[in-house]
């Protein structure tokens, strides 16, 4: 099977989707001729023409608003926001419009759009190239929120998102674009070509939205993670030798609660990790759900390991990032609690 980077996998997902369905269109800032600042759309304009893949003015509002109109017409736009940090100008269009149109029109109009955006830190991008705003979307009924952690899933989930009849926020951990980064920032990064999850089928396939997956079976405790943090959790388990069961959530909304509760009921302990700031992060929802549904199985409080409640700093990036040391400490403390 071919090996792809996450960038190539994402590109392949759009390529396959555009090839199968004329209604799929792709646009965003710098995505046309140049193929995107992360090259995720490279070659699509040449292949499908500039009315199906094109550059947009620097207006995230306009990009999403136009996509909504196109979706109302019957297209399936898959648009790019250059960094997740820049999605806020489009927030009203996403929250008040994309998420509500099916409901308020009783299905008369629908909004099958995908809004892709690179998310997360670890590239010394400072406070405006590092954010993880997923929790600002999981609170919005009507949206789906997806965070892939590897090329295989990225392609399958993106195709599923494009084919989904409802609006999908698709957050791509940019630190994973070129390899499975586990938070050991001082060690060389393995490229995807050396990782089994870099194996990506060439053609069409989907990874279903709303389904989590065990990344590692274990009996000591359950780690709930997504995106980059799945690898950080793996590293922390390896570093501490704790037999953690690691779940890659993949889709945050709707959430695969069954997989989560089955695991926590088995292990009796749970650690939640994400890169976003702590307060009102998605980890809060996970902790609230787990304590509710697994209360009588829990042997220790659920601990969240997350970014601190500050903007993402530039110089102190690795003090901010919830790396394997912090996650490992939480695993140990949770075992000892």
């Amino acid at each position, binding site marked *: 099977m071919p090996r792809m980077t996450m960038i190539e996998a994402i590109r392949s997902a759009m390529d396959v989707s555009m090839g199968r369905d004329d209604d799929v269109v792709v646009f965003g800032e710098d995505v046309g001729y140049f193929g995107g600042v992360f090259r995720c759309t490279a070659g699509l304009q040449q292949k499908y023409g500039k009315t199906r893949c094109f550059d947009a003015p620097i207006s995230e509002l306009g990009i999403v*608003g136009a996509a909504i*109109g196109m979706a109302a017409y019957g297209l399936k736009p898959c648009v790019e926001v250059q960094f997740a940090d820049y999605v806020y100008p489009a927030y009203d269009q996403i929250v008040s*419009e994309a998420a509500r149109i099916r409901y308020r029109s*009783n299905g*008369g*109009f629908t909004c099958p759009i995908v809004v892709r955006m690179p998310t997360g830190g670890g590239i010394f991008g400072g406070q405006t190239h590092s954010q993880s705003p997923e929790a600002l979307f999981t609170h919005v009924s009507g949206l789906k929120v997806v965070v892939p952690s590897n090329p295989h899933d990225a392609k399958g989930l993106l195709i599923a998102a494009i084919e989904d009849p409802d609006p999908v926020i698709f957050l791509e951990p940019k630190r994973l674009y070129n390899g499975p980064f586990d938070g050991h920032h001082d060690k060389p990064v393995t490229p995807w070509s050396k990782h089994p999850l870099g194996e990506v089928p060439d053609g069409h396939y989907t990874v279903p939205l709303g389904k989590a997956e065990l990344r590692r079976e274990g009996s000591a405790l359950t780690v709930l993670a997504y995106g980059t943090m799945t690898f950080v959790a793996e590293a922390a388990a390896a570093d501490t030798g704790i037999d953690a069961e690691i779940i890659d959530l993949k889709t945050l909304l709707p959430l695969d609660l069954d997989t989560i509760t089955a695991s926590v009921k088995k292990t009796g302990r749970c650690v939640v990790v994400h890169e976003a700031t702590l307060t009102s992060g998605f980890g809060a929802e996970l902790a609230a759900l787990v304590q509710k549904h697994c209360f009588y199985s829990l042997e220790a409080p659920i601990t969240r390991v997350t970014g601190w409640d500050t903007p993402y700093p530039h110089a102190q990036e690795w003090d901010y990032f919830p790396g394997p040391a912090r996650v490992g400490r939480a695993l140990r403390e949770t075992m000892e609690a």
Partner: protein
Amino acid sequence: MPDVQPLQLHVPEPEVRPGDQPDFSNVKIPQAGSVERPPVDVDPKEIRDLAYSIIRVLNRKGEAVGSWAGSLSDEALRDGLKDMMTLRAFDARMQTAQRQGKTSFYMQHMGEEAVSCAFRKAMEPGDMNFPTYRQAGLLIAGGYPMVEMMNQIYSNEADPLKGRQLPIMYSSKEHGFFSISGNLGTQFIQAVGWAMASAIKNDTKIAAGWIGDGSTAESDFHAALVFASTYRAPVVLNIVNNQWAISTFQGIARGGSGTFAARGLGFGIPSLRVDGNDYLAVHAVAKWAAERARRNLGPTLIEYVTYRVGAHSTSDDPSAYRAKTESDAWPLGDPVIRLKNHLIVKGLWSDDRHKQAEAEVLDGVIQAQKEAEKHGTLHSGGKPSTRDMFEGVYETMPPHLRRQRQEAGV
């Protein structure tokens, strides 16, 4: 710099407030017929002056004059009058229904009936409007059943939107009427996106976006002009300048600019102002813009100069912020009376015929209302179900919503 004077903030104010004598003498009204109709493929640069004038067809005597006149048949004119009369009667009944507690909220069109009613007649089947809450004329003139509108207003068991939406926030794909948003402005860029999609698919359908004078300050307005201009989208962008945004006079949104239409000039978009109380002028300009869009000549921005005669909504009382008789002083008159007079001048109508029509129209509205009320009103009779509340958030209900519906016991 010792000679520098202290700065002062300028806050625009309307010339007239409650207690003052209304005065619109500063509103320059060009003579009907005085603005020439350019060819639809005119270079936008050539017609910049149209953004600062007012295109008018009906003169004081009720005659249709000038190069924008003449595109409507006798029957179309009579239909137009009837549409406006229907909208007005509909508004009156629903306004009363709200006061009777049959619904929570209503917004009327008094004085602005020509805009949406005449525009609708310039659209073709399959075209799509992205309206605000003050273009129900698009539905009335498009033949959408009044009883459906009322079912929506009443949030009753037959409500096509299942009680989920605020009254008057209609939605009908079949009638080319996009789901109204309560959030101002959002639809303007969506209209452009829809039009772009039509162009991408090499279709022949066009879109129309709608926005109020006050709402042009919103970001979506800018995005719409940027995208429409860049991609030459087949879209008609309509600004309904009814002089007020709730209690805020149009000077707050317009600022130092001459007109709202002028906002389009900086984007190279042909921008026209039209007498919004002149059914014939509205229709002619709408047709011109629709033809431009359909012929792939790109977007047009139209400012309809009109006046909001009624309150903003049933939650509003304008006597707190504007002179009571201001609407009487409004120099562009009443759209219904003006079209009626034109029909009389043309020998197609009479005062008697008008009275009779009023009765017929009212009767139709009352019939619809009776029919609708059989299905219930907001607080009595048939209602949408609690189940309906949980449906339609997604195409397929996800597990967490199923759990919640269960918890709700429905």
